[in-house]
């Protein structure tokens, strides 16, 4: 499958150039600092609370990581002129988008995997339930996948990486801030906005170790819709 081929090349590109590692290292360092200062800090807590705090801060950094990982996906190829190679080859639009997204997701998964030392630290000094950790990580992966898909869409729209990062950041912030809109609107609109919000209603259950179908479905739908939109953009841009 062509999407797989594109994903493999893209991932190799991430692993061979500095930019990927720099993004990974910087965000990982910040994530660790926040974990140390806020999730661990203060009065003595129960392990489950610390773990919940870890997922709370990590969710924010996962969104940021997804943003920086996704910005180069299509915009960089456009900048370098290599997009013409994909466009002039017998490859379907959706394979281009899917390939790019999968490569980004694999790299994001690497980031998420790198955060595992923090729950391990908790395990060493306390008690951690495997279910709680798995639920939290599933949440991070789903949240990351949705953010990455939005970022892929932004990258498809933009001429260069900087524009891609800005466009995607605006979209992600708008999605996250939906819950603020929910507070000032009336029923039934407020419930719609509340349910639309990228974080507010859907992530906290994962954070405390609960997996709800509607939260999983929400992140998958966001991923699908954003990738679908990105495919449409590629389809339209391919001829320009």
């Amino acid at each position, binding site marked *: 499958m062509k999407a797989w081929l594109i994903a493999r*090349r893209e991932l190799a590109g991430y692993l061979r150039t500095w930019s990927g590692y720099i993004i990974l290292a910087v965000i990982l360092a910040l994530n660790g600092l926040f974990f140390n200062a806020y999730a661990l800090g203060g009065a003595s807590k129960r392990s489950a609370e610390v773990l919940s705090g870890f997922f709370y801060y990590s969710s924010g950094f996962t969104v940021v990581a997804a943003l920086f990982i996704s910005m180069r996906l299509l915009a960089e190829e456009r900048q370098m002129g290599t997009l013409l190679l994909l466009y*002039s080859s017998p490859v379907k639009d959706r394979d281009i988008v899917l390939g790019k997204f999968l490569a980004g997701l694999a790299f994001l998964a690497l980031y998420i995997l790198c955060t595992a030392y923090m729950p391990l630290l908790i395990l060493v000094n306390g008690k951690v339930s495997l279910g709680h950790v798995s639920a939290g990580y599933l949440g991070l992966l789903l949240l990351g996948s949705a953010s990455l898909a939005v970022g892929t869409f932004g990258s498809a729209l933009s001429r260069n990486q900087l524009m891609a990062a800005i466009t995607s950041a605006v979209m992600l912030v708008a999605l996250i801030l939906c819950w603020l809109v929910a507070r000032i609107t009336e029923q039934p609109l407020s419930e719609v906005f509340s349910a639309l919000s990228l974080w507010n209603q859907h992530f906290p259950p994962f954070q405390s170790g609960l997996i709800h179908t509607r939260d999983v479905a929400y992140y998958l739908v966001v991923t699908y819709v954003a990738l679908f939109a990105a495919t449409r953009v590629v389809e339209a841009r391919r001829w320009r």
Partner: protein
Amino acid sequence: MIQVEGLTKYYGEHAAIRDLAFTIGQGEVIGFLGLNGAGKSTTLKVLGCVLLPTSGRVVIDGHDVVGNPHEVRQRMGYLPDVPPLYDEMTVGEYLSYVAQLRGVAAKATSARVAEAEEKTDLRDVHGELISTLSHGFRQRVGVAQALVHKPALLILDEPTSGLDPRQIVEMRRVIRGLRGEHTVLVSSHILPEISQTCDRLLIIHQGTLVAQGTEDELARRMGGGGSIEVELRGDRARAVAVLQEFGAVEVERASEDMVALKLRASPDLRPRVAQALVGAGLELLRLDQGAGQLESIFLGLTHGQEARA
């Protein structure tokens, strides 16, 4: 192989190409000639399925470019004006990737890559990172990626741009070597590169096709049968008298010990001209085919257009 009818592309108000029409047969090597901004790249992008024409019809190998681009892309290799290379890959990896992207089976890939490297003289840099290659090599990798899947049609947009004279000679040899296996479209704004590699020329100026044909046909149409350049030592009047036997003569430069003349006559007459001059007791220093037979055709065509515009 290619039929183009009424091809027009507008960028906003500005027409990059207007009402182009031409046909190209199987196995032909065609040169697209025009000044920068004449519409060469635009035309090749439409043929390469990366640009939607405003109007007109392009059929490649029986498939409409707009209606059925996927089929066309399978039969075509395209080198854009900037080679689409990934710097962090090696030449071999890159070519394998492109081959599979264009539908070569995994098993056949390494053989195809080797073949493409052979044709473009890239064997020695197979394992090198693309970022370390010189401009000439990068350009050849660009050609290699276009032909690695053995497409029926090869579209090369300015493959010789920015190359030094030695590299241009190599590139010309590479393109000549493609004859027979592929139909090739090469664009350039530099004439000698094209005249020596192509069967037929299409001359584009300000978005319209101003002439097409072989170099000789174009020369005949322009009413010029070529020219001969002569440099000699001796009596100028006598030299002019001798040369006038063959055609019109212009004195280009004259100094105490040297006269440079231009004779309007077919370059085929060179041996007889030389004999006549030597026979008349003149010291012949240089005798050459007039520079840029094609150049004068080209300038004539594009100049005339500008005067009319």
